[in-house]
């Protein structure tokens, strides 16, 4: 086994300087549930590791009308957060059910995003909430919408000198909600075979004012159902409109056959999950079709 250099700076400034200096040979360690797993099982031993656990990046607060979530916020913290449960429901739901308690007290939201699995639980939730992320370097920072963040399986737009420091989400307001749903091979401790998130805002007349739909494990990267969103926006939010939108959403996917499920199965189940999360996000009763 080779020697691994280890850095655990206490300030973000130091961390960004180190990242700028070492670039892609310095791997960011957050919870370790992916990085250390890969070291254990695939012998992917990085040259150097930067642990971000001492940077104070675990926080959830509402400021200037936006939810600011530290990238090192753990699933346990996110799932138990009242603020997220009320104003970013889908994210609290996805966090609270991900993997198991021992994994949830390690795994972080920023880590889930940077691993960039097309099936990531909280990845789908954050994409479906219309979140953006802050990517920082020692020279400055940029805000990237998650819709532009993923470039392929395990790939993102993060540059070698950058660290993801914060997730920014517009909180749900009046007549607005969000929901996350997944299908796995078992009830718990399972990878999503498909997952979906919807965020819906209705106006006083029951028309769909804003809508975001995200789908996971149905394409090389987590996907927004852009055509389905367009179909719903500005129209009456009815059971028929939801059914039609879910059909269109399913047609926007490019699923594959793999050990977790077939493309055939994914195309059919994603339609069900999109419809279900739309109904829940829009405050409709289940079974009230």
């Amino acid at each position, binding site marked *: *086994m080779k*020697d691994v250099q*280890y850095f*655990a700076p206490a300030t973000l400034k130091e961390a960004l300087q180190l990242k700028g200096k070492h670039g892609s040979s310095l791997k960011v360690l957050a919870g370790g549930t992916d990085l250390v797993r890969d070291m254990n*099982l695939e012998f992917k031993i990085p040259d150097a*590791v930067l642990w971000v656990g001492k940077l104070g990046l675990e926080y959830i607060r509402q400021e200037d009308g936006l939810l600011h979530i530290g990238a090192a916020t753990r699933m346990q913290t996110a799932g138990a957060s009242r603020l997220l449960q009320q104003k970013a429901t889908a994210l609290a739901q996805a966090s609270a059910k991900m*993997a198991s308690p*021992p994994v949830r*007290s*390690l795994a972080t939201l920023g880590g889930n995003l940077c691993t960039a699995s097309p099936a990531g639980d909280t990845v789908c939730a954050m994409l479906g909430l219309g979140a953006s992320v802050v990517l920082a370097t020692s020279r400055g920072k940029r805000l990237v919408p998650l819709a532009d963040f993923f470039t392929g399986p395990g790939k993102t737009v993060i540059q070698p000198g950058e660290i993801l420091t914060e997730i920014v989400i517009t909180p749900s307001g009046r007549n607005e909600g969000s929901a996350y749903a997944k299908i796995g091979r078992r009830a718990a401790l399972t990878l999503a075979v498909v997952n979906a998130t919807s965020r819906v805002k209705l106006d006083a007349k029951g028309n769909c004012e804003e809508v975001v739909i995200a789908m996971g494990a149905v394409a090389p990267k987590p996907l927004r159902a852009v055509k389905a969103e367009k179909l719903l926006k500005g129209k009456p939010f009815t059971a028929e409109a939801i059914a039609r939108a879910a059909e269109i959403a399913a047609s926007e996917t490019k699923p594959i056959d793999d050990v977790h499920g077939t493309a055939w199965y994914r195309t059919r189940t994603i339609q069900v999950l999109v419809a279900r999360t739309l109904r829940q996000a829009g405050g409709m009763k289940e079974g009230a079709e």
Partner: protein
Amino acid sequence: MLKHEISFKLNGKSVTVDAPFGINLLTLLREYLDVTGPKFGCEQGNCGACTVLLDGEPVNACLVLAPVVEGRKVVTIEGIGTPEKPHPLQTAFTEHYGAQCGFCTPGMIISAKALLDRNPNPTREEVAEAIVGNVCRCTGYNKIFESILAAAEQMR
């Protein structure tokens, strides 16, 4: 290979150990400190046999890079109770047949301890939620639920 000093609190005692930075906490405990209660199972956070408490929260020791525990508190099954003075969970697991082969038991008891520390009166469902990350291939879980619920009652 270069070794570095890692200091932390293990089962209430301060320890300092020389180890490479690239190993995980499970290896640090088992191979550098001879603490063999946490078991080596899947090494990917699926089986829970290596579960320990890190600052009071359950974690998979196999997923924690060793240097990350610097200055922090780690509790393994060895820190929960002793053969002479067992923890109520350990007594309950023996009395209610919660352990068969015993491989999952150290991790199982750690997860149960983490639950009871914050919820002394759990329902059966809450117990199931708490040990969802601890796989047992012997008991079928019912005896484990009974053991944990019995320990909870004993401790109240």
